[in-house]
């Protein structure tokens, strides 16, 4: 199955603007991000605390929905999903 990952801001500098991944087996978003973290240590440093926990205020959307309101890191990916990764932007 094919999954698109779109990265914004700081994450874009690390993994590029958009990538398409072909997964041979079912994965959760958590598993996918862990794999991306192995491939891009810079991304792991940005997104995960040293304990391995995702920094909670990072925005991860699947098809326009924040994973915090899906099954969080256990959300299962399905064919055609588009993942968006972007940092918190909170100033005014």
């Amino acid at each position, binding site marked *: 199955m094919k999954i698109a990952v779109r990265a*914004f*801001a700081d994450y*874009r500098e690390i993994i590029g603007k958009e990538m398409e991944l072909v997964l041979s087996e079912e994965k959760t978003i958590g598993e996918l991000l862990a794999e991306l973290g192995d491939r891009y240590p810079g991304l792991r440093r940005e997104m995960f605390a040293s304990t391995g926990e995702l920094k909670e*205020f990072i925005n991860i959307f699947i*098809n*326009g929905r924040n994973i915090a*309101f899906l099954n969080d890191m256990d959300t299962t990916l399905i064919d055609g999903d588009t993942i968006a990764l972007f940092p*918190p932007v909170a*100033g*005014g």
Partner: protein
Amino acid sequence: MIRRGKEAVREYTVERYQRQISLLGADGQETLRRARILVSGVGGLGTIVAAYLAAAGVGFLRLVDHDQIEISNLNRQLLFQATDVGREKSIAATERLQSLNPAIQVEGINRTLSDETVDELIQDIDLIVDALDNFTARFLLNRAAFIHRLPLIHGAVRGFFGQATTLIPGRTACLQCLFAHSPPPETFPIFGGTCGIIGAIQATEAIKVMTGQGEPLANRLFFWDGQAGEGTIMITKRNPHCVICGGEEGVNQDSH
């Protein structure tokens, strides 16, 4: 020849807004004159949004902020002068906008947005601009906007990055559908141009929503990356279980 009364006002109005009346029509301009908009936060975003709304002839602007002007604000908060340092932002901005456009009414309120104050601050308001600097206050404003069925124009900035979206109760996701957490407070880095871009988008959205022109940024989050020189639209969706706006006829179309 001296013109008096309504005729003089009409001519002044037509001339002042000539360049936009050709876009909005006389009816659209009249809609703006009757519009009552709250700008919550008078900082990097709020000063820009409020300046465009005042210049465009929005008839009533309420500016709310609890801060005083600091010298480090002046790289981006273009309504303020060096001599304003130490003054209340809401008051200094009100004076500045009132002299920019004497035909409108500007009300500056030096107050903290809180559970206790929010209902009073949005009283008699048609549309709210979120120009705040933290998500705790934003979630509070979002809740009030949803309860009172008021459109909320969200904007936020950090460094070279910014985002904006238009939240319309019953029609779009609310802010709480999109963002789960308040990032830790920080003295965020900020470049003035980023505020200009996002603030100008917010002003445009406010005028579009008030006049019914164009297609608002509804269920679309605009993300601006000034470093890459690129803006991107992310399609967003309501959370049917949202603690604020879920429960009514929120239709979850996706498979998750």
